[in-house]
């Protein structure tokens, strides 16, 4: 990093000038050439002025170089971004916004407020969905000093979609690995909740739902009517079929995807009459 950096000879200079549009900077005519001259030198620490010292009491070995490096508080830095001293890149470029900022928002932002940004933070796609797909996801940390639970709940219910990825996190507390989702049966006024964490296969879930609603139906039809035989099943051959709604709002037949994928995407379950499946937009068209 030695002093002057130029390209070739001075013939380049004017060409560079012509290229520079007016839309970004105002360079006063007479001083253009001078300002194009690039001078770069890092002043010895002392020159920066001890008044810029910042009281960072670190390991404090007190070497001059360290102190020099630790100098310059942000305040002086910001106000001196267009430093007139010789220690800086000597072009009179203004900030993109044309002003110095003393706030934390920098000059170069394409968005006015923090929001979804493509490719940021820099995590690869297969990492993005790890926690969304894990049944052990427990986003609340008991030891957390930030009381982030409320904030978490709120922000996740809003469910920002970034990058088109799968970002509807399941914000259900699962202290013991349990995972309750709502289940409604057609013809039954009151829904129930079933703990998906208690099962690991579709068969077990299906029989549990069977038991649950058989009781419900029996209760509902008190009086003389017989209990309805609810031969439910994942294969849709019984009178009732279990379907579920996933995090994208689609209705799916139970059993379509591997169990762990189902568990990570399911939002609610529904028990529908098999004969009326096609009217709900599923089942009839699907080949199994």
């Amino acid at each position, binding site marked *: 990093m030695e002093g002057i*950096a130029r390209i070739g000879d001075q013939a380049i200079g004017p060409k560079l000038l012509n290229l*520079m549009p007016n839309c970004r900077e105002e360079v006063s005519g007479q001083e253009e050439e001078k300002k194009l001259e690039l001078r770069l030198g890092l002043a010895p620490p002392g020159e920066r002025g001890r008044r810029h010292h910042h009281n960072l009491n670190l390991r404090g070995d007190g070497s001059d170089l360290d102190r020099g490096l630790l100098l310059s508080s942000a305040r002086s830095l910001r106000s001196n971004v267009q430093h007139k001293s010789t220690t800086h890149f000597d072009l009179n470029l203004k900030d993109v916004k044309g002003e110095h900022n003393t706030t934390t928002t*920098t000059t170069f932002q394409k968005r006015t407020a923090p929001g979804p940004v493509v490719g940021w933070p820099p995590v690869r796609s297969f990492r993005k969905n790890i926690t969304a797909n894990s049944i052990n996801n427990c986003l609340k940390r008991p030891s957390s000093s930030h009381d982030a639970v409320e904030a978490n709940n709120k*922000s996740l219910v809003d469910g920002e979609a970034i990058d088109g990825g799968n970002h509807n996190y399941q914000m259900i507390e699962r202290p013991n690995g349990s995972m309750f989702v709502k289940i409604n049966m057609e013809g039954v006024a009151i829904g129930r909740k079933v703990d998906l964490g208690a099962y690991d296969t579709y068969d077990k879930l299906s029989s549990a739902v069977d038991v649950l609603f058989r009781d419900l139906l029996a209760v509902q039809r008190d009086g003389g009517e017989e209990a309805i035989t609810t031969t439910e099943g994942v294969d849709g051959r019984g009178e009732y079929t279990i379907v579920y709604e996933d995090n994208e709002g689609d209705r799916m037949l139970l059993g379509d995807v*591997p169990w*762990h994928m189902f568990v990570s995407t399911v939002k609610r379950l529904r028990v529908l009459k098999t004969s009326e499946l096609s009217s709900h937009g599923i089942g009839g068209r699907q080949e199994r």
Partner: protein
Amino acid sequence: MASPLSFPEEVLEHIFSYLTLPSDLNSASLVCKSWYSADRYSRRKAFIGNCYSLSPQGLVSRFPNLRSVEIKGKPHFADFNLVPEGWGGYFFPWVRTMSVAYPWLEEIRLKRMVVSDEALELIGRSFPNFRVLVLAFCDGFSTDGLAAIAANCRHLRELDLRESEVEDSSGHWISRFPDSFTSLVSLNISCIASEVNFPALERLVSRCPNLRSLHLNRAVPIEHLPNLLRRAPQLVDFGTGTCSSEVHPDIYSNLVRAFAGCRGLRNLCGFWDVIPAYLPAVYSVCFGLTTLNLSYSTIPSPDLANLINQCPNLQRLWVLDYIEDSGLEAVASTCKDLQELRVFPSAPFIPEANVQLTEQGLVHVSLGCKKLQSVLYFCRQFSNAALVTIAQNRPNLTRFRLCIIEPHTPDYLTREPLDMGFGAIVQHCRDLRRLSLSGLLTDRVFEYIGTYAKKLEMLSVAFAGHTDAGLHHILSGCDRLRKLEIRDSPFGDRALLTNAAKLETMRSLWMSSCSVSFGACKLLSRMMPRLNVEVIDENDDPCSRPDNCMVEKLYIYRSLAGPRFDMPGFVWTVNEENSTMRSSSALPS
């Protein structure tokens, strides 16, 4: 006139076969014509860091007898969706040329390239001695292509698909390895989403006595593990499948016994969805572990700490931020040999912290782990003080990548930019080769980097800097810089054009959402004919706009091959007549 020092070529070639570093061989080849020739014919390995830096024909004519080729394609930011689909990086032209020129090719290692099934089939047909296929972060192929490899590569030793995207046609490709096939040493199928034919996999494992490395995919349930491990107790490197099913006592005790039988196990990974209750099953191998990758496991901190406390010989640890500061304190006190730490974010897209992971965790590790060289750390807050402490504790750092999740985040204690902190890093860590910046940063940090980071080879910049001075400091100061990638930073024409010559000493430069004008791209291209200056614009034709308009994305790299011919419609490059040229989007394979 024969000099007494001239050897027959065969002797020279034999001597050169003892030189392993490409840089040494390159130096030898420059000594004189006969050494150049000897090196040329005896070179066995080639590493091509940018697939567009030379043509396949160029490679085979320069080195006619290669046995091993490593090629990298897309720019690094392609990992984060910044490079549009169809950009390029096709492997087929390479394999087509090599299939003729290198019948004795043994090894192909690719990173971020588009590999078609056709290319894989060509590998199977063309190289009878083929041994090693590594496809890292690649895409474009399906399990049909893998079936072709399995069926035809009789001497295959390594099949490693790390993090590639594989289209699943069926899990039966594993069955295509013939019964007589026994040479497998390493198999990594962790990226394959669907179920693989497990009985076939078991049989494969059983008949390959030299199998040292096996990474299963997520679809393999934990119940299958004990039998598998029993067939391969010689494993050194193992990746589990999913570990989420209910803990049955039988399965658990089988697992314990199986792991206990693998006395040589040194690396463990996988652990998708793992229930903490399973973890003690691996305790018997923990003492010998040198690598532990738990970055897919959402295990809470206390369980993580318990596991890590069993691993005093750990050299490399990858975890999610569930480890929290408390878990990292355990790392700092237990893992005295730790060289590499990576902490990934569990919930990168929510603004608030969901875990108690701060800069303190890394500070503890920097103090306790004296051999720490490589850091990748995602968190939500940092301070200059912490960075300075880390720098002073660990001047032996060679890779330092800090990602503060929210852009422009200042020092949380002082609200100032983090210039000083990163400045301390580059000042103290004189052997730093790779650096990624984040947080609120002004031009000052680049001044420090240009002054002190003399060994820096790769720099990643995002949402940083104020003026062109920042970019100028980097390009004029970092003598060893090879790769520079910048996004969302206000660097523009002046710094780029002033340092045009520097760009030819680097492998590549990526700039997206910066302030470089189309006119400057054209000018740079005219000035530097051995650079390919490619403008990526998905919305518009940059020629239709005035020259002073900014380009969306810019990728500049040196090349012996001239502008490429496989550019899609959204990539422009400048030809010599000062107008733009846009290649057709015909794909080569």
